[in-house]
């Protein structure tokens, strides 16, 4: 080993790794040294305050904390001696002196302090207790606080401040009055806590505990799987008892390093919600499909229970009938980015091979379709060029049109840590956010003015010649034309459009262009516009002009929303491409699939999500199979979308709840939740990971894989897949980028990054170091011109409505509104309004208002939120009581076919 350090440990000459502490080195060599303040995993810093890990260093007056002491050459260390033992035991007695008697808990992390005392054989203290116990704090829906158990190891403080970079927990007071507090000594439930639960996992004493755990359990086992929510792809260990998840722990996955957010930590009990569909349902003859049922009606009243045999037969027969009657173009399918890779693959294969249509799409259309369009056009690949964990290698990090602390919380921890370690952070968004406080530049520009702002930055880079000409010469096409184009957008001219002064624009451009390596993260704020593709083109141009792609810490990272939106897209759940992004119009590529699947495939791209809804309204689409999607909540202009769904001759919905979409179904097939099946999922970093079955499905609910195959069989397809692994093996054979990934490898390694062409190669985390998958091998600069959002505010509708997700609520709320903790944290739709606008409207925070656009109206309470700029209101689209998409504008980006969900005109009226 290179650069090892030789020293003496308990009389033996040993080698320490560079930078290793005495305790780490001893542990590696099999010598256990007690300790409680060094966190719960290697990603924590040690505090050096508990003083249980004391060791003797020859020649030193006092003992030393082995968790903090780096090994230096020649050190002579003893880890055991009567003196050491006495000091450690006395310290343990001091820690035990003032805390109450231990109680049994099924929550393993909370037992670590008791266990340590037992290991050290110190079970009682000779010191008299001081008898003062702080009151318990049960104000939080997820976490109970009992500081009488606290030993001030400060693991929670570092969990909050360093590991998650949230900075809610700290140590207040001094000496014997030192105490763990939240914010300003507030009750946890009233603090700024985001309930990531890192502190709970890190607490060794039970002072912080998940709420409502049973005192004792039997037959507890653990399952290593994933989180079902966002594209970060956190690895999770589920602790299960009696077919019920007791609690979760973050696993040391490549994307989360043991961390979780509130959803992954506490959002799992939707799977056991009484609303779960447990029997196949068939629409009662004559029960009319009427969107009005969603205004407080009972959709179940329109259905009757059926056997699987009947339901599957009915579903398949009706799809078949429509196909025979109206042809391929009359059928469409929506798969889901929440399903596994295998499910996505099977679903698109079913639609394409049974109905000979490419009318198969999923919610990527509503999130990153425009980003993907720009990326395909510019660099020939739609996925991220490097993982978000690379933020640690970046000098400059740009976050634009994304709120990762809310929507990709664990990814944001890497960004915040990078900033703490010296990276420059630039946050660009019309709304403020949790990252604003950390940002070197918080750029709150005019909503919808992305291209104006970005073009001005690009102009500065070209005008001041901050361009990486070597890179341009070797890797990029179209520079001269682009330079001419961008000449027309100097900062002074763009400044009035975007609301950012010219000098700041110059500063930003210089900071980005002159950095050694820079990463750009973006989200729906970029993509969900009629100019979404243009927005992304500008970001790509920033990276290309400055050569910021293809190195660790330099890259483009569209933060993918759903846990498997990357994988579903990879698997071909898109109307223009077959698996592995093989264009449907590419005859050779198509032929490869025709031969593999033994069928003819259509060459024309299919319709996209919003187009399918329009076609349904026009009765061009007659029958649909919707698997795990909820367009009756997620599509723009819901009144229209719901009318369209109601007009279908036949609708098969496969889901776990009676969603708003299922209310329009003819057949509802009760499927499995994430926890009830095994399959692979691909996160935003292109890491393919294995989700394992944690629970049994409730009632007669069946695995999605089984349901899709059963329909396929009834449609005459000769399918005999045995399990997910079997499906994945087929996928490997038709998807070269996944050729090196087997289920076995996934089981063994936990995660494999694609592209991974062969089993003996690691996956490629950072792409395009040597060129781009373009015909010329070079990337292409694409010009963008500023255009206004489709619907501008006016006298009648003076406010801009912007929509999105929130930390606690996922998408259309089908899961999170039924997760008890998440729903308790954010139980109601709240319209965020700037306090000054509230004042000018004569409203108090919390008062209800009516929000009206040209397409619909809703009412909800207001939230005074300074993050929202004046003239803008924000409403998450997760609440069926006030479905934001009733108001949104279905105008589409011409390239990505994504709707302008981030911008429409509304009026706000006091109720």
């Amino acid at each position, binding site marked *: 080993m290179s650069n090892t350090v030789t020293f003496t440990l308990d009389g033996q000459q040993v080698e320490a790794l560079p930078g290793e502490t005495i305790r780490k080195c001893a542990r590696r060599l099999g010598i256990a040294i007690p300790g409680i303040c060094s966190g719960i995993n290697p990603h924590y810093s040690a505090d050096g305050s508990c*003083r249980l890990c004391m060791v003797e260093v020859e020649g030193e007056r006092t003992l030393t904390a082995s968790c903090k002491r780096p090994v230096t050459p020649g050190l002579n260390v003893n880890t055991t001696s009567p003196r050491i033992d006495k000091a450690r035991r006395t310290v343990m007695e001091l820690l035990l*002196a003032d805390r109450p008697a231990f109680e049994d808990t099924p929550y393993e992390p909370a037992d670590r302090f008791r266990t340590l005392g037992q290991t050290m054989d110190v079970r009682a203290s000779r010191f008299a207790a*001081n008898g003062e116990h702080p*009151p318990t704090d049960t104000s939080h829906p997820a976490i109970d606080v009992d500081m009488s158990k606290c030993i001030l190891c400060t693991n929670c403080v570092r969990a909050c401040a360093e590991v998650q970079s949230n900075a809610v927990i700290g140590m207040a007071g001094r*000496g014997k009055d030192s105490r763990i507090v939240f914010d*300003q000594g507030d009750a946890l*439930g009233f603090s700024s*806590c985001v309930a990531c639960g890192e502190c709970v996992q890190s607490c060794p004493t039970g002072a912080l505990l998940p709420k409502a755990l049973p005192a004792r359990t039997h037959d507890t086992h653990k399952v290593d799987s994933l989180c079902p929510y966002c594209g970060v792809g956190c690895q999770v260990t589920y602790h299960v008892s009696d077919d019920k998840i007791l609690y979760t722990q973050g696993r040391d996955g490549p994307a989360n390093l043991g961390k979780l957010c509130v959803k992954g930590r506490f959002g799992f009990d939707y799977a056991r919600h009484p609303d779960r569909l447990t029997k196949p349902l068939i629409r009662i003859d004559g029960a009319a499909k009427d969107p009005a049922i969603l205004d407080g009606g009972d959709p179940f009243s329109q259905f009757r229970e059926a056997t699987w045999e009947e339901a599957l037969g009915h579903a398949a027969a009706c799809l078949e009938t429509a196909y025979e009657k109206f042809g391929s173009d009359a059928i469409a399918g929506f798969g889901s980015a929440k399903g596994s890779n295998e499910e996505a693959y099977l679903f698109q294969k079913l639609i394409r091979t049974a109905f000979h249509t490419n009318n198969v799409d999923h919610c990527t259309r509503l999130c990153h379709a425009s980003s993907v369009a720009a990326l395909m056009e510019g660099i020939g690949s739609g996925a991220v060029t490097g993982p978000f964990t690379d933020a640690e290698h970046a000098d400059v990090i740009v976050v634009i049109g994304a709120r990762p602390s809310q929507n990709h919380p664990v990814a944001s921890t890497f960004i915040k840590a990078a900033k703490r370690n010296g990276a420059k952070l630039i946050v660009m968004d019309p709304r403020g956010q949790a990252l604003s406080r950390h940002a070197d530049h918080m750029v709150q520009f005019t909503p919808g003015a992305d291209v104006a702002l970005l073009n001005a930055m690009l102009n500065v880079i070209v005008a001041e010649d901050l361009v990486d000409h070597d890179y341009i010469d070797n890797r990029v096409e179209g520079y001269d034309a682009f330079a001419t184009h961008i000449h027309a957008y100097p900062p002074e001219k763009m400044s009035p459009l975007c609301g950012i002064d010219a000098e700041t624009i110059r500063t930003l451009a210089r900071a980005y262009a002159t950095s050694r390596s820079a990463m750009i993260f973006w989200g729906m704020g970029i993509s969900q516009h009629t100019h979404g593709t243009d927005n992304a083109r500008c970001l790509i141009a920033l990276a290309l002009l400055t050569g910021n792609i293809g190195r660790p810490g330099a890259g483009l990272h569209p933060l993918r929303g759903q846990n498997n939106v990357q994988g579903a897209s990879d698997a071909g759940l898109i109307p223009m491409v077959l698996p592995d992004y093989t264009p449907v119009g590419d005859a050779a590529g198509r032929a490869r699939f025709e031969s593999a699947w033994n069928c003819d495939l259509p060459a024309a791209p299919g319709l996209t999500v919003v187009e399918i809804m329009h076609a349904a309204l026009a009765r061009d689409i007659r029958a649909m199979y919707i698997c795990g999607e909820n367009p009756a909540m997620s599509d723009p202009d819901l009144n229209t979308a719901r009318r369209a769904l109601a007009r279908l001759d036949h609708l098969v919905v496969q889901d776990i709840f009676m969603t708003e979409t299922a209310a329009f179904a003819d057949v509802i097939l009760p499927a499995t939740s994430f926890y009830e099946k095994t399959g692979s999922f691909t996160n935003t970093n292109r890491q393919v990971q294995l989700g394992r079955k944690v629970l049994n499905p409730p009632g007669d609910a069946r695995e999605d894989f089984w349901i899709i195959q059963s329909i396929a069989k009834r449609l005459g397809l000769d399918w005999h897949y045995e399990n997910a692994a079997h499906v994945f093996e087929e996928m490997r054979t038709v998807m070269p980028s996944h050729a090196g990934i087997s289920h076995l490898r996934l089981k063994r390694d936990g995660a494999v990054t694609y592209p991974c062409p062969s089993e003996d190669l690691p996956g490629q985390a950072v792409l395009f170091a040597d060129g781009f998958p373009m015909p010329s091998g070079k990337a292409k600069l694409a010009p963008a011109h500023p255009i206004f959002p489709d619907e501008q505010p006016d006298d009648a509708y003076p406010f801009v409505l912007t929509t999105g997700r929130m930390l606690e609520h996922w998408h259309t709320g089908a899961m999170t509104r039924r997760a008890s903790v998440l729903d308790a944290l954010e139980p109601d739709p709240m319209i965020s309004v700037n306090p000054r606008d509230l004042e000018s409207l004569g409203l108090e925070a919390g008062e209800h208002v009516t929000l009206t656009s040209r397409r619909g109206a809703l009412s909800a309470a207001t939230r005074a939120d300074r993050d929202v700029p004046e003239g803008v209101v924000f409403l998450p689209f997760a609440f069926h009581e006030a479905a934001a998409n009733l108001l949104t504008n279905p105008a589409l980006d011409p390239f990505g076919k994504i709707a302008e969900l981030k911008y429409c005109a509304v009026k706000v009226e006091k109720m």
Partner: protein
Amino acid sequence: MGQKGNTHPQRRTGKPFPKGRQATDADIAAVRALVGAAHRERDLLIEHLHTLNDHYGHLSTGHIAALAHLLGLAQIDVYETATFYAHFKVGDTPPAPITLRICDGPACRMAGAKALLKDALAAFDDQIQISAAPCQGACDTPPSVIMGKSRISSATVEKLTSHNNAPSSAPAITDIPPPSAPDIAEAVRKAELRGMGGAGFPVARKWAFFDDAPHPRVLVVNADEGEPGTFKDRYLLETEPEKVLRGMFIAAQALDVQDVFFYLRDEYPHIHAMLGDVFKRMEIDGVTLHLRRGAGAYICGEETALLNSLEGKRGQPRNRPPYPAQHGYKGRPTITHNVETLYWIADIADRGADAYASEGRPRFYSLSGRIKNPGVYRAASTTTVKGLIDMAGGMSGGHTFTAFLPGGASGGIFPARFQDKAMDFGVFEELGGFVGSGALTVLSDHDDVWDVARTLAAFFRDESCGKCTPCRIGTEKMLRLIDNPRGNTDLIHDLSDAMRDASICGLGQAAPNPVLSLLRHFEEGD
């Protein structure tokens, strides 16, 4: 289990505000008006807190939220720091406009500080907030009281009630000519000058740490004199500030530093006024001068705790290594010198190493307690306890010498039979004590040594930073155990061993000294 505290109704409704306390526009404006367009660095946090605390008399939740907002910090960052320091009044209830702190140190207790506290509480209405406070560095004129920014010596209730509350006047200072001492490093080495803050580390060896240190480098002046019984730094800054500052400049030049931080304890407001004025006028090439106020925390005299305090954090010591000379203020190479050390650096620059050595490596002793003329005395390092008492005119009338504290609260308590021991580094160590900062407190037949030990144990409990277990919990348990020292001897010894062996810094390591020295030299005989 603790008793039931905060609970919440089962059915929740959406909150009309985002999570956590929101800073209001009004509070943001009020705080901005006082602290200006604060730059988003945490290191000035304590200065900002002083500004608010001085102006409003307390730190309200609203103002803390607003300050956090302006500085780009989390509220917990501000709250953690604010609640650490005794001089910040954190809370929404405005306290009485005037604070009156009565010294609770050993010398002031001997001079009737407890009775004064009782009488003062009876004499004043709730317009005055009265509290006991640790040593104020005025053991030569006890009892000491600080009222607002005014220091009152030899305080009586009459003196307090008639006090006009005007700030104490700043000591006079003349301008300091640019220092030039090219050979100072060699002179300091030759003089065998040692650090006068208490540890006695050779200055030349400290400076050698900087031989290859990268820039920018930092010099910190530790004027957080807080060891009970110690007041020599105050004395030097009152009587010869020019010489101390000259020493500071010489050291800054010799060490080639880019920043000098002068960290002054908050109990010396008159010196703060003097330095604030003089720092505005003085310049030294390539060096930025920073004057910082402590905020009532004995522990910040500890070098690494002081560095954390300079960074706007809780004054908690750091684990070493890394040592500050490599990784100090904000990770920069940092050397810290005590005020008196700088004085002697200037002295050696003026007179040469030989003169310093031939005077017997003199130092300034703080003498207090039952002696005729308490005060600061310049004497050779080899001077005995008896010799110092004689310099101070002998014992006070009616008092018989029985015991003494050679090194403030931390240096142990010894019977009079050790009076011929020299008050020098390395002498008392073998007896379980040390002279530290050279604070000799003399006890008489009127004093109960166990009473003194309890006072000191309570002092350590109150001043422990709370970071490490042995000190945080140990100091509290020690105070209980010495209610019955003879019955708890074994446990006291076990606890003391753990505190000495396992505490992070000198506070916890030395905190058992008074108790142990009593057990060893008074109870067991020697």
